[in-house]
């Protein structure tokens, strides 16, 4: 329960009480009373949750994009996040009961940058990657931006946030790879027409990495920026361990391994060297020092 002492992005470590657990298809949505995390939240940020209880053999926190944050008053702030079961840690989490307490660190990461003025925008969410786009859409609408949203997944059970998005925006395009909901195809398929129809100036996206790369490609073809939130394996979530790095081209043209937990999770898609993820490109800053001597 250590509170941050200063800083532009105050991070807190607090015990949150699970207020509600709801299943959506393959996902489990948590609503947790966590006023400290809720207070400082901005869309795009995430929360790192300890799993397995106090004597767990699972050391590493699991990170989830925040959405549905209600700052409320000092004592009633709630956060929401969505969990897809991947292994033992997420399996433990989805078996928790209402009233149980969760050990949380957040809000973490760099939020989505907002346009300086109200411009038309397209939001693209893949799977539970739609989650952080919901509060972003709220914020953009409040700014006066015209917002259109495309929500996609492999199959209907893997869709998330369609209802929330519809309630917020009214018009939501749904795609599934297998056609089990919405139109059959990739989530990027409806992007060009949406961008043209709106005269969109920015694309925002969140989802699996190949999708984000494709979102970036479509945006580039329309000569507009795409701000995307990545999901990368993290050990600490707070910037000390250096495990979650991605090769990203800097403003100076030099590519570096940068942390997706601190410099990210939101990156301009055009700066991420998607094709080089998982490799050590020879021109990366400091790669020349890696040679075995």
């Amino acid at each position, binding site marked *: 329960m250590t509170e941050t002492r200063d800083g532009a992005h105050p991070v807190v470590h607090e015990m949150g009480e699970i207020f509600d657990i709801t299943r959506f298809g393959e996902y489990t949505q948590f609503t947790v009373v966590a006023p400290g995390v809720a207070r400082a939240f901005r869309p795009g940020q995430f929360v790192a949750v300890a799993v397995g209880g106090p004597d767990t053999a699972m050391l590493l*926190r699991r990170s989830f994009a925040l959405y549905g944050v209600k700052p409320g008053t000092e004592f009633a702030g709630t956060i929401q996040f969505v969990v897809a079961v991947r292994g033992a840690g997420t399996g433990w989490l989805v078996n928790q009961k209402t009233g149980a307490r969760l050990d949380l660190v957040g809000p973490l990461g760099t939020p989505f940058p907002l346009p300086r003025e109200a411009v038309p925008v397209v939001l693209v969410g893949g799977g539970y990657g739609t989650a952080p786009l919901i509060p972003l859409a709220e914020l953009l609408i409040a700014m006066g931006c015209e917002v259109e949203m495309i929500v996609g997944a492999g199959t209907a059970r893997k869709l998330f946030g369609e209802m929330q998005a519809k309630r917020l925006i009214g018009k939501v395009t749904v795609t599934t790879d297998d056609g089990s909901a919405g139109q059959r195809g990739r989530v990027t398929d409806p992007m060009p027409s949406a961008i043209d129809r709106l005269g969109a100036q920015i694309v925002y996206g969140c989802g699996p990495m190949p999708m984000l790369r494709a979102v970036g490609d479509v945006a580039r073809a329309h000569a507009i920026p795409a701000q995307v939130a990545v999901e990368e394996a993290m050990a600490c979530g707070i910037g000390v361990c250096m495990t979650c790095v991605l090769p990203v081209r800097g403003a100076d043209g030099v590519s570096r391994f940068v942390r997706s937990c601190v410099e990210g999770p939101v990156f301009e898609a055009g700066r991420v060297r998607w094709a080089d993820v998982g490799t050590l490109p020879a021109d990366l800053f400091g790669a020349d020092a*890696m040679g*075995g001597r």
Partner: protein
Amino acid sequence: MAAPPQRPKVDMRTSLAGFELPNPVLTASGCAASGRELDQFFGVAELGAVVTKSIMSRPRSGRPTPRMAETPSGMLNSIGLQGPGIDSFLANDLPWLRAHGARVVVSIAGGHTDEFVSLAKRLYHHGIDMIEVNISCPNVENRGQVFACDAIAAARVISAVRRAANPNVPVFAKLSPDVTDIGYIARAVTDAGADGISLINTLLGMVIDVDAMRPALGGVTGGLSGPAIRPVAVRCVWQVHKSVPHLPLLGMGGIKTGADALQFVFAGASAVSVGTAVFHDPSAPVRVLAELENELARRGFGSFREAIGFAHRSPAEQAEFFARRSVEVSA
């Protein structure tokens, strides 16, 4: 004695070869970057010292991802010493640590002896508190570079660093547990001039992703850390304390609680580093410090120093210590 005497506050001061610390809990190299991120959770000056991520001569990208795999009560990492290099460290990180009142232990790493020497020289006039020489990182391309696996290579690096470094700054050798006889390596680096020994670095490990049917880490092998390695670490501290009893030891490896830290102290450590536990609990170092003080008080120790190497004493010696202490306390 009518009422039990009020529990005295434990004097937590300690020293590492002349480096005086207000308390014996430090961060572990590679688990705290250069302190800035953890300052969101507690003041870095509250710790005995901050041990930096290993600094090298040049900026270094580190290895490709995936760099991490969770293991039972631990994790495997293959970062490969990603870092900005000594110039950036001296320009940005060291001034920040100073400005925030931290005592600073600089971990240095190199591909060859000359690199270690040039780093020690660069640090000469910067008023740092201690140098930890990382001769044991397993995430290097050539395992031959793990100097700490070879007594002669380890001694050569330590002797060169000791000669090049500011004589007022203690030089600690950080050893690997992946050796046949760690006591032998400890004697070699001691003879070479090490003022103390840090132990242990990670154990070389490997995980295979059975779905991908490939190694889970981009670097194939990685360093194992966390509570899983704690018994190995305590054993190493015990053996090295026996091997070089006069030398101060900085103990680390899977410390998660104050009671964990106490094992290292009883085994012979003059101070401890909290590493991987930070990934689970960013405030772990200050929590471990508070817990350690309670554990010492509960056992009747008046000062941290009294507990160093205490498990090496015979039951009779231990009983005599507490008998004498209770006389002192009631007097």
